[in-house]
């Protein structure tokens, strides 16, 4: 009897282990010569899980929409990087060495993308990030590209919003010191806000926390004592939703602003009524489609997933389309040729707008400002790059 129970337990364990195996092949491919493999490394578990999952939904949709290039089938190899920098580097190595992918898509979170930076550079396999916004992701790396705007722009947009629209004169920063995204975006916000107010003391305080923290009461109590007009807190949707909830519980009633990572349904679910009025910048809105492809993307997405589309899915969709466009123009599946053609992407019409990559491999695009209102993300305005 004991043995039997042991066996049952062991078999359950094995089943679970095989189910939780991190890679899944999306389309059954035939001969290796006949399929083109594109690797995807995104966080499907951990603190950035929602962002990664939304992105993958968009990539899968793009793969269904356009499943062939150069007469060959395109196969996605999706790997979970677990929101962990070490896992992200391993995932990228695995895609290149084991799965022999010709190009890589990913990852949500700048830190995770940067972890794979040297790996793709040394292996000479191009990577296209969907939403990592920190400038360092592509800087000095010819093999890393992205289809989104970067944080110097995003930080300026939010500083402008705080200064012009909210009339704020004093701002406090609450940043996640483990995320390059959060620290970088805070820095650009600070620079820009100081310039706008013309006052070096306009930033009344910078406080920090770590990814995965749940309790922010100590930091928030200190911030409350500084009496800021506005709080800028870029970071993961989960931590920030808890942070805002605790801020409201502590009686902090000033507006709280953030960045594109806040756009996840979990942000509203976890934050509840506390996150009402939270304002953030993002990449795309379904309320103002910008191109013909936006409309196709929106209707396809809603048909497939039965829910409203989001910026990350749209960026995942675009990253895939940009790579396929480059493969087509290269007329080759050689990674170096693909890289050269991604670099010359110009006026490519994607779901999130027209994409032209600059010399760093960054897209120059407009930003969208959204606000949480009535338990939904509501579109406020679009800010053009200058």
């Amino acid at each position, binding site marked *: 009897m*004991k043995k039997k*129970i*042991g066996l049952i*337990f062991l078999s359950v*364990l094995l089943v*679970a*282990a095989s*189910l*939780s195996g991190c890679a899944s092949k999306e389309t059954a491919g035939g001969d290796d010569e006949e399929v083109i493999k594109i690797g995807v490394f995104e966080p*499907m*578990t*951990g*603190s950035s*899980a*929602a962002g990664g*999952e939304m992105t993958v939904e968009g990539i899968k949709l793009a793969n269904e929409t356009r499943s062939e290039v150069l007469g060959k089938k395109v196969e996605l190899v999706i790997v*979970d990087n677990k929101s962990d920098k070490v896992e992200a580097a391993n995932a990228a190595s695995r895609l290149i060495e084991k799965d022999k992918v010709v190009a890589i898509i990913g990852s949500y979170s700048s830190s995770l993308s940067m972890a794979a930076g040297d790996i793709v550079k040394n292996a000479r396999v191009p990577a296209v990030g969907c939403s990592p916004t920190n400038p360092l992701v592509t800087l000095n790396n010819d093999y890393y590209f992205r289809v989104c705007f970067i944080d110097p722009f995003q930080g300026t947009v939010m500083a402008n919003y705080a200064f012009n629209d909210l009339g704020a004169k004093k701002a406090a920063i609450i940043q996640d*010191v*483990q995320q390059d995204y959060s620290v970088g975006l805070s820095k650009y916000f600070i620079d820009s806000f100081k310039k706008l107010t013309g006052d070096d003391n306009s930033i009344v305080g910078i*406080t*920090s*926390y*770590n990814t*995965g*923290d*749940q*309790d922010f*009461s*100590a*930091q928030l*109590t*200190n911030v*409350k*004592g500084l009496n800021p007009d506005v709080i800028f807190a870029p970071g993961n949707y*989960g931590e920030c*939703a*808890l942070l805002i*909830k605790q801020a*409201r*519980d*502590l*009686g902090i009633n000033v507006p709280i602003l953030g960045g594109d990572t806040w756009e996840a349904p*979990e942000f509203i*679910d*976890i934050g*509840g*009524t506390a996150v009402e009025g939270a304002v953030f910048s993002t990449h795309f809105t379904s309320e103002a489609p910008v191109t013909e492809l936006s409309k196709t993307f929106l209707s396809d997405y809603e048909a497939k997933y039965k829910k409203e589309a989001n910026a990350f899915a749209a960026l995942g969709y675009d990253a895939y389309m940009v790579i396929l466009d480059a493969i087509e123009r290269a007329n080759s599946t050689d990674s170096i040729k693909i890289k050269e053609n991604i670099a010359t992407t110009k006026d490519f019409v994607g779901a999130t707008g027209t994409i032209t990559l600059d010399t760093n491999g960054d897209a120059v695009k407009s930003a969208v400002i959204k606000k949480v209102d009535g338990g939904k993300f509501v579109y406020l305005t679009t800010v053009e790059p200058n």
Partner: protein
Amino acid sequence: MNILQHITNGISLGSLYALIAIGYTMVYGILRLINFAHGDIFMLGAYITYYGVLFTPIPWWIVFILAAVVTGIIGLLLEKLAYKPLRGSPRITILISAIGASFFLENLGIVVFGGRPKAFPTPDVFNKVINIRGVSTGLVTFIIPIVTVLLLIALTYFITKTKTGMAMRALSKDYETASLMGININRIISITFFIGSFLAAVGGIMWGIKFPQLMPLMGVMPGLKCFIAAVIGGIGNITGAVIGGFILGLGEILLVALLPGLTGYRDAFAFVLLILILLIKPTGLMGEKIAEKV
């Protein structure tokens, strides 16, 4: 006024640690087994409550009790599957089995519940904010210490005054002699695990109310920290675990509040405290004073 607010925050967090540490320390006290899966049982308790509140018509307070009972039964089954077959083995074998059980539950959580976080369905009553002379805090800050103290009293009563409790103490003193005295070892161990997991679930529910973000790995850090709290208090000692929890919670908050530059070392603080206590007073604060362990 700020310092009062910080202390309130610290007590609020500390009482939560204390609540989870009680279950940890109780299982250790009786079986000399560090149940590393305790944090994951805590996670299961929170998820079961989530599904119970959202997908059944049962009122939330009944769901809370039912979820704790169901989690208790899961803990009991875990003992039967992962620990009982190894009962005669060296302690290290059971310890490794506990670590294995912990990883199993975490990965099972990812497969069953998904990697994306879920929002804990906090009943509206708990969302109330109370403001006393500038010190502002959620109602839950008052509820958690009350629950902790009530459970502490109930548990102490159970262990010192009831027959089953007496059997538990006998078991913790001398396993073999106890079995020779006609104590049904299997039953007592099952009850111990049931209570331990029940307490973990109560901790999970309270945690969910305070930090309404459920993730399959949410039990890892609290599990470790509450283990530390239990060691600080003297592992095996229930009152010690509560004191350890408060020390840890207050310490963390005051570290971040008074030395903002050290925020990044918040989790490290807990582990440094663990190392210090093991070096200076390995038996913990309450370990020696009260000879009677539970």
